[in-house]
């Protein structure tokens, strides 16, 4: 049975897209190795790989092809704009679609019956991020009062910046400035000079991988050392690749992001396998891996390749065999209710979970010690 695996594997988001594809295809290999979909006589999953080329119309065209090729469902999308366009195209054919990352809430609030998002959306992420920021600041004796936000200017970064701007003042933080930038962006000198001039206590970056790394490195080069760098969905902040390649720039960075359940042996086993392949265990990998398992579980229960039955099986899913700290899956209007981000911090060249307490492997270090 064919499953569409859609990611932006070329273009501006190619790194994340390829990581997503890695996670999805590893899950498919595992499912097939374990005997395929048993309810369908051990049918093997045949992935149909699609490249959204980092654009919404690329995603749309790929879903058309997948539909024509007769896939039973599609997993992926990654970027919000691609997810918006791809889910809508899939909806034309009642094709079940599991969104892997795409955090814009309108993906699931448009009333598309075919669309399911396993991970958390903006609303939940921003709320958790703010609560945890207040907790961390309070525990340290409230040293931070001012904030600057640096965000990429598409749906993801701008949406987040809007939410943060609306809510930070209520929680006792003054937003000194909000700086948008496009993706891709190849130099952050001017942005960092602005930050240096305003000298905020906390910098909040919200951007994709390459820009995040560049921003963090420029901050390090310009010797800008705020009390904390607290990212929300920071593209690189909780990426092992970043920590390994730029350990100095990554030091003490905190992030509120998608993260695997560090107490789940399956998640740790997959981490080892991914690292043995010479790849990094980034969130795209384990989220796509989990999404594919979620879909396989729905296929088992649907015991059919009929799209309507698969959609019903997804809608009633209570799947808990995934790698995320979400608990059993429960979809309400296509959104997984248990989905939530965690807070991480780069400590001793590793990434530790600092909040919530039940998953924490370290205590937050805040404010950053002087260089």
């Amino acid at each position, binding site marked *: 049975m064919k499953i569409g695996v859609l990611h932006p*594997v*070329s273009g501006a988001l*190619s790194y994340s*897209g*390829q990581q997503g594809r890695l996670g999805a295809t590893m899950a498919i290999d595992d499912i097939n190795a374990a005997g395929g979909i048993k309810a369908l006589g051990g049918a093997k999953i045949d992935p149909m*790989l699609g*490249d959204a*080329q980092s*654009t*919404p*119309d690329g995603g*749309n*065209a790929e879903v*058309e*092809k997948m*539909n*024509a090729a007769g896939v039973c469902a599609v997993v992926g999308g990654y970027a919000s*704009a691609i997810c*918006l*366009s791809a889910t*809508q195209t899939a*909806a*034309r054919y009642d094709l079940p679609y599991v969104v892997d990352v795409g955090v*814009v809430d*309108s993906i699931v609030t*448009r*009333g*598309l019956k075919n669309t399911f998002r396993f991970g958390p959306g903006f609303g939940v992420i921003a709320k958790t991020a703010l609560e945890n920021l207040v907790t961390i600041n309070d525990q340290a004796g409230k040293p931070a009062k001012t904030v600057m936000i640096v*965000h*990429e*200017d*598409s*749906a993801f*970064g*701008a*949406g987040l*910046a*809007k939410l943060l701007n609306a809510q930070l003042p209520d929680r006792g933080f003054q937003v000194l400035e909000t700086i*948008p930038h*496009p*993706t891709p962006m190849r130099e952050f000198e001017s942005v960092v000079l602005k930050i240096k001039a305003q000298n905020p206590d906390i910098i909040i970056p919200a951007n994709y991988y390459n820009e995040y790394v560049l921003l963090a490195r420029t901050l390090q080069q310009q010797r800008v050392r705020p009390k904390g760098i607290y990212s929300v969905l920071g593209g690189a902040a909780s990426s092992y690749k970043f920590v390994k390649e730029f350990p100095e720039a990554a030091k003490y960075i905190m992030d509120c992001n998608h993260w695997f359940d560090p107490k789940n042996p399956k998640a740790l086993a997959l981490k080892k396998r991914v690292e043995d392949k010479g790849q990094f265990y980034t969130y795209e990998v384990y989220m796509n891996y989990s999404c594919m398992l979620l879909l396989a579980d729905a296929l088992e229960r649907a015991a059919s390749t009929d799209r309507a039955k698969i959609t019903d099986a997804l809608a009633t899913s209570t799947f808990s065999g995934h790698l995320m700290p979400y608990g059993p899956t429960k979809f309400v209007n296509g959104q997984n209710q248990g989905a939530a981000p965690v807070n991480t911090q780069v400590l001793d060249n590793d990434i530790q979970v600092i909040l919530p307490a039940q998953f924490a492997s370290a205590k937050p270090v805040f404010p950053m010690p002087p260089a």
Partner: protein
Amino acid sequence: MKTYLSIIVVVALLAAVPMVTTSNVVLNFLVTALLIALAGQGWNLLGGYGGQYSFGHAAFFGTAAYATAILQVRYGLNAWVGSFIGMAAGALVGAVIGALTFRSGLRGSYFSLVTLAFAEVLRIIASVAPITGAGVGTLIPLDLHARAFQFQSRTPFYFIALALVAVSLTVIRAIENSRFGAYLVAVRENEDAASALGVDAFSVKLCAITISAAITAAAGCFYAQYFLFIDAGIAYGPWISIDALLAPIVGGAGTVFGPLLGALAIKTLGETTKLIAADAPGLDLMFYGLLLVGIVGLAPRGIAGLSRAISRPRRSSISTPDGSRG
């Protein structure tokens, strides 16, 4: 009627496609190709016939797309009415940019750079202005009814795109055969000489950029209704400026069918290289780039120019690319 016969034949052939195939993959492919052909036809009038190479046709495309979307989402206007206003808004932006740049006497690469700058400024404004939804973009709610300019099937979209292209082909042919068209080509060939002969170069160029913007704007309106989501990068991003000039240049700038030929060639090339490259990420884009370099190298006057060179080798090099005398 004879002058329009080729247009009628081409459009009739394309209109027959849905009878041959009901594949939405093919229709979607053709719709996106027609979209680029339409945007490219706008560029072709100003760049191909008028010799004013714009790098910023995204300004017209984006304004129309945003106007269409915003009028529906924020003001509850009907999508069809919104699209017409969107087209007018695009044309207005064209007239304003034209008035500013041509009045300042900007020509050649200076004109190109200024148009690029206008598109970029609009992109940055759209990425922060609340009315455009800033970076979050504008999402047109799903309402699959003909009155909302949305369709369950791809076929009606295909016919609408084809109709728009047919209109644009007819307009360009009519201009080509008109006094205005002759003035425009004269301005392209030698603006000073044309002025000396009494052509009001400023008015001719201004008129050309306005019509050009309106045609590209129609593509913007169509894009908004087809994909139902736009953000600053989509609406005003460099991709559409590049596609809009690449299609006519590959197909044959300054010819009626250049943009359509070019758009179909580019899109077919893109799809073919995807098949060749299979699942290796980005490899198709490398093939695509190489082939494009090859095509442009082999046929500097585009596909239309190449076919003419084959049928009529070594003819006068003074004649304009479409064969008519300026």
